[in-house]
């Protein structure tokens, strides 16, 4: 029976959540290296408008399937002991984190490469969209600008 992994979580990924994830790995004593990526919301300024928060939406069912496919491909390509991916849905404010990729390997080299691979795959393939809300109450759909 296949274990179900839920990637999408409502709201920001908090430091406490990350700490809890790390702590859970202390019993996995074949792990020697963890590599973690966190995506944080930048206070960018675009055309004089200051980013206030980002609202994430996804095709949830499809996204979970895509994340599962990405996971499987990473397990095939790299020697990974375990892997966790979390992505926010809904509103994430400037300074908060919206993506948490957590790879654990026996040795370090694989962990770096797997980390970069996973983040790039997620950015390219996960059906997730972000609406960048500015402090002046205007917004932009990121990646669809100029359409």
């Amino acid at each position, binding site marked *: 029976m296949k274990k179900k992994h839920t990637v999408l979580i409502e709201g920001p990924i908090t430091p406490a959540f990350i700490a809890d994830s790390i702590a859970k790995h202390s019993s996995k004593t074949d792990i020697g290296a963890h590599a973690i990526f966190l*995506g944080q919301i930048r206070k960018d300024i675009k055309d004089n408008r200051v980013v206030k928060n980002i609202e*994430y*939406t*996804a*095709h949830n*069912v*499809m996204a979970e*399937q895509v994340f599962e496919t990405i996971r499987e491909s990473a397990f095939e390509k790299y020697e990974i002991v375990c892997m966790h991916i979390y*992505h926010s849905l809904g509103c994430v404010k400037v300074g908060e984190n*919206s*993506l948490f990729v957590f790879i654990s390997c026996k040795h370090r080299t694989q962990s770096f490469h797997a980390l970069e691979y996973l*983040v790039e795959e*997620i*950015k*390219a*393939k*996960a*059906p*997730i*969209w*972000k*609406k960048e809300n500015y402090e002046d109450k205007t917004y932009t*759909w*990121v*990646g*669809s600008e100029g*359409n």
Partner: protein
Amino acid sequence: MKLNLLFFGSLVDATGIQKRELSTDSLIDVSLLNEYLQSVFPLLKKHKYKIAVNQKMVENEQELQDGDEVAFLPPFAGG
């Protein structure tokens, strides 16, 4: 047949729709459906997007069947 249309990201603004059921007997493939929707929502033509049927990316020739979920996906922007 009945189709379940889903629009995401900027396409929600372009169509004013997130989710809608469509009954049709003539829109038998993705290409015909897309042309129809572009005529109803002309703003769609200004957007780049791909189409997924039942959560799989498809090409225009893909035939549609009763109960299919057809999702309109602008460029992904996760992370």
